[in-house]
């Protein structure tokens, strides 16, 4: 599986309160959530994001609350993948469980600049930066997690008795 898109770059410790502020958590409708995605950090994100774009963060991406609304808002806004040096653990689980692709790669997080054209191969973990002509090696998922993703998320995996 591969994804292509342009980088939208942010810094370290991007928390779930800025990804989707709590004042919008009185709804769980993904479309409504996506309309406010990243609002408290970057008001232009919603206007700017194109289908397939990739968010690139630094350390501890998705820290803070366990709200699944955060990866849901990101997925629904058309983002194909989040690349970061490290992820906060609940965000990491949630992304896998709802089928938002994420990949940990410190080198990519450091070298990719805002707007770079990227390609990610999820099977190998290789990230290609077409703008800079560079490749970075990210961590591919372990087998168990790939089976969840292959089923299209945790709930599908349970329904299909795959886990």
């Amino acid at each position: 599986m591969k994804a292509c898109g342009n980088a939208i770059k942010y810094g370290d410790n991007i928390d779930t309160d800025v990804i989707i502020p709590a004042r919008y958590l009185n709804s769980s409708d993904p479309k409504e959530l996506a309309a406010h995605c990243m609002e408290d950090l970057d008001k232009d994100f919603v206007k700017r994001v194109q289908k397939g774009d990739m968010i690139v963060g630094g350390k501890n991406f998705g820290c803070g609350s366990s709200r699944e609304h955060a990866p849901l808002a990101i997925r629904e806004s058309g983002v194909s993948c989040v690349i970061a040096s490290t992820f906060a653990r609940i965000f990491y689980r949630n992304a896998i469980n709802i089928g938002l692709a994420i990949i940990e790669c410190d080198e990519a997080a450091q070298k990719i600049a805002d707007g770079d054209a990227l390609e990610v191969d999820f099977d190998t973990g290789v990230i290609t930066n077409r703008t800079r002509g560079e490749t970075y090696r990210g961590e591919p998922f372990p087998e168990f997690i790939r089976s969840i993703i292959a089923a299209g998320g945790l709930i599908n995996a349970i329904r299909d008795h795959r886990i």
Partner: protein
Amino acid sequence: MSMTMSQKILAAHAGIESVEAGQLIDAKLDLVLANDITAPVAIREFLKSGAKTVFDKSMVALVMDHFTPNKDIKAAAQCKLTREFAGQYEIENFFDVGEMGIEHALLPEKGLVTGGDLVIGADSHTCTYGALGAFSTGVGSTDMAAGMARGVCWFKVPAAMKFVLTGAPSRWVSGKDVILHIIGMIGVDGALYKSMEFTGEGLHHLSMDDRFCMANMAVEAGAKNGIFEINSQTRAYMEEHSKRPYVAYSADTDAHYDEIFEIDLSAVRPTVAFPHLPGNTRTIDECGGVRIDQSVIGSCTNGRIEDLRVAAEILAGRKVAKGVRCIVIPATQCIWLEALEKGYLRIFVEAGCAVSTPTCGPCLGGHMGILAQGERAVSTTNRNFVGRMGHTGSEVYLASPAVAAASAVKGFLASPDELHTDSD
């Protein structure tokens, strides 16, 4: 093979002799939890899974605490959906307005969590129950839904860091100061993916309420869980509250810890986390009189009876400074009643505080004390991210109940010591 406390609990619930860091396991759950924000998403996923019933009606807890009593129509709809689900699926532990409290204060009080348990909750501060020697951790709504359906959850066994506590804290220093001190030291991702295990003879000087507060904030250092070794105070608490027998696990003497820190409690000063990260800490001596508009005393971190006792001690016979709003939120109905009986509520109202029914309220910028642009709050809550309590141009300073109460009186960040040396 030698294991940490957390690893022993995971191994026991996975039904295997031993586990090691990094191993993926499926483990049996003792309780799954969600609230009025995360339950609606979990219910939607649960219904999609094709499950006909929850795995155990007595082992699911749904607590309506975040935007309740309903702050608006959408919040009301989310609670209604959850209430109807709880009715239809006969969830035994559904806590609604009037009997609810903030989930992480409520569940231990009701005895629904006990030592040695394995608990997941669709709320990041589920790690609070580590104070009882349980392995408990926050997950998302989909994990919660899967947990409700199957009664098991997948885990990657965490590595661990050990915190050996020594000495006794000085007056006005509480568990909040200790955990803020630790997060300031290791950073907001200092324990990423790991267990934070607390042990040492200093434990005896930390009350259960101190430990709940410290375990609560393990997630603010990125930890998967925070856990305390069970001692006589834990046993006494569990004998009073727990509905089920507990199991006390302690780490093997040769268990591997990535890092070991010794924390001398007597050296910890009242500590404040400046905006916008819980790790951005300074001691009260370095705060430089930052002016505040609001003081919030409450939340799953510091809304327990001992927190209110300390705040009442400081506010008794004093007044909240002109221009400061002080909001006190007892975390559960029981705590509220006890604060009433002990006279704390009268002290708060006479000092000029607003006292609320239990709710998360302003902690997550929900309701009951939202900040305008440019306003500052000192708060006993656990997060001070951009916009957490209101406008993105507002600021939150995290502190103990003692500092929040003293600051309410002074009108700026202050230690209770500053009150005792003058005539406030």
